[in-house]
């Protein structure tokens, strides 16, 4: 798939965006620029980490999702969700009540994706054992991290484990279970509930897989609200049979150390994309000791901190840890029918090799790239180094790089313009028109109702 066709879940609402540069400043890959007073995301640089959404004070960055009505076209309507979803509900709601609410919303079957996790675990173990040369093995659990490695740490793509994620496990497992009950392929509709936009992109345009297995995506915050509306605190039916293959290990899988605790003699778990970046820089330089397994997650507290999670991430972790204690560890489930019949499922968890997609080169032609780098270096001498963002680029260096790529001009720097005015090189009205072009007309007029007047949320 060409990078431009890659599915991205994030959209910027031009009606809401106030061009405040908050998103641009937090993006770990410098994928955002502001022009005409609106933020724009550069597709080839975006890793879907969701940091920009978190930082937006007016919620102008949103995630598209599938219409829930789509489920009605299927006879078997399966909701697949990561166990982390349970953790965000207040403790007073039981698992049974949450499951019952999901059925009330219109699903016929409820599956937490991390079951039977033992199959994925042993598949990953097999891979690690058979590919000792690619150590440290890096988990492909978090799609934002996979993408980050593809575009920014291409030499590390070989270290990515060629196994799929729990949502694939859950999907294949659900299909095989339903088929046992007589369901036909076309009658089964699988709907995956996502904690983040990264998982959406990876489900819609999977990396290392041919096509997506899921029929639709539902945002977790949206479903949370629906469940809260439908939930009944009075007694709920016993739905435990749908959790027969859920284990302690499965419930903890998407939390920090959820994977790392299982693999290798020396393993590490790092959460938060900026922490991960600092670590990958070192790993790439071979400045780290001999590590077997790396669990890397874009969100602080891993999926408990997913951008579409409701509720406090630490409380979510606490509830899940508490919940996990009531479930048996995965190794105790070795003789269940599901595990015994897991050969086929295991085969389905094997993914293709992940290829790199470096997104930071200045030009496909090396001589030209070097020439551009030289020019950027010279331009930097003229920029003030304040990294203010008023040019619409995240920092002076990025502006210089945009300039040599033909996407920005010297006059975008407001301080340079000031200096030129002072030196009589540019008229005040021309300079003012330049800033208006960048930030929108009327932006600088007194108006108590204009967009961006208040930064709600700060």
């Amino acid at each position: 798939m060409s990078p431009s066709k890659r599915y991205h879940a994030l959209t910027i609402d031009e009606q809401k965006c106030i061009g405040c540069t908050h998103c641009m400043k937090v993006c770990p890959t410098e994928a955002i620029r502001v022009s005409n007073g609106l933020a724009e995301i550069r597709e080839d640089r975006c890793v879907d980490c969701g940091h920009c959404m978190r930082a937006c004070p007016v919620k102008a960055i949103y995630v598209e999702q599938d219409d829930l009505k789509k489920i009605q076209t299927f006879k078997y309507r399966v909701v697949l969700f990561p166990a982390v979803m349970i953790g965000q509900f207040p403790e007073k709601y039981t698992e049974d009540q949450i499951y019952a609410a999901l059925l009330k919303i219109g699903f016929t079957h409820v599956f937490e994706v991390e079951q039977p996790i033992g199959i994925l675990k042993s598949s990953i173990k097999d891979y690690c054992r058979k590919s000792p040369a690619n150590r440290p093995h890096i988990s492909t659990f978090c799609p934002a991290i996979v993408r980050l490695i593809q575009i920014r740490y291409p030499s590390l793509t070989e270290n990515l484990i060629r196994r799929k994620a729990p949502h694939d496990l859950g999907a294949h497992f659900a299909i095989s279970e339903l088929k046992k009950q007589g369901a036909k392929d076309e009658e089964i509709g699988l709907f995956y509930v996502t904690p983040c936009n990264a998982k959406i992109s990876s489900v819609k345009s999977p990396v290392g897989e041919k096509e997506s297995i899921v029929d639709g995506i539902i945002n977790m915050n949206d479903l949370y609200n629906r469940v809260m509306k439908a939930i009944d605190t009075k007694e709920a039916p016993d739905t435990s049979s749908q959790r027969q293959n859920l284990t302690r290990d499965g419930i903890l899988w998407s939390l920090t150390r959820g994977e790392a605790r299982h693999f290798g003699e020396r393993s590490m778990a790092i959460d938060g994309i900026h922490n991960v970046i600092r670590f990958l820089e070192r790993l790439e330089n071979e400045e780290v000791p001999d590590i077997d397994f790396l669990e890397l997650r874009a969100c602080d507290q891993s999926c408990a901190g997913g951008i579409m999670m409701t509720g406090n991430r630490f409380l979510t972790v606490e509830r899940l840890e508490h919940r996990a204690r009531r479930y048996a560890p995965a190794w105790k489930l070795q003789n269940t029918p599901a595990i015994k019949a897991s050969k086929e499922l295991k085969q389905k968890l094997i993914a293709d090799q992940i290829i790199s997609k470096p997104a930071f080169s200045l030009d496909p032609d090396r001589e030209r790239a070097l020439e551009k780098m030289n020019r950027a270096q010279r331009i930097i001498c003229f920029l003030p180094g304040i990294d203010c963002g008023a040019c619409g680029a995240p920092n002076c260096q990025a502006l210089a790089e945009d300039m040599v790529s033909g996407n920005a001009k010297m006059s975008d720097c407001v301080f340079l313009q000031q200096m030129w005015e002072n030196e009589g090189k540019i008229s005040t009205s021309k300079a003012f028109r330049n800033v208006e072009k960048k930030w929108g007309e009327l932006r600088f007029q007194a108006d108590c109702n204009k967009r961006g007047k208040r930064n709600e949320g700060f």
Partner: protein
Amino acid sequence: MNLEFNIEGGNFSRAGHASSEVKKMLKQLGIDARCIKSIVIALYEGEVNVVAHAYEGRILVKMEPHKITTEIMDKGPGIADIELAMQEGYSTASKAVREMGFGAGMGLANMKKNTDELTIESTVGEGTTVKMVNYF
């Protein structure tokens, strides 16, 4: 395209600064990932050697369309027997340095392995100059 960095002897927290900067630029040039890796590993080892064994140093990087030349010049004790120093496992690193996770005696051997040309000139009591060339 030329770059220059300074290295402070004894300051391990800054070691790796030059190699990270150079890495960023090589990525911008679109150099093959494996090739970048070799260059960065060699340069990092060179940086660490100045930090661990010398008093102060300077790095000059010259990037050309098909090769990169790095020169690491330091003021320091120098190396009396370069051939011996090149041997894997040979190290005069102090206990303190080894406790910080450096000084396994693999640095110079790794530099040799990861560069196309490596020349070392050294005068005992004055300093050392390491020159590395990688083609791409």
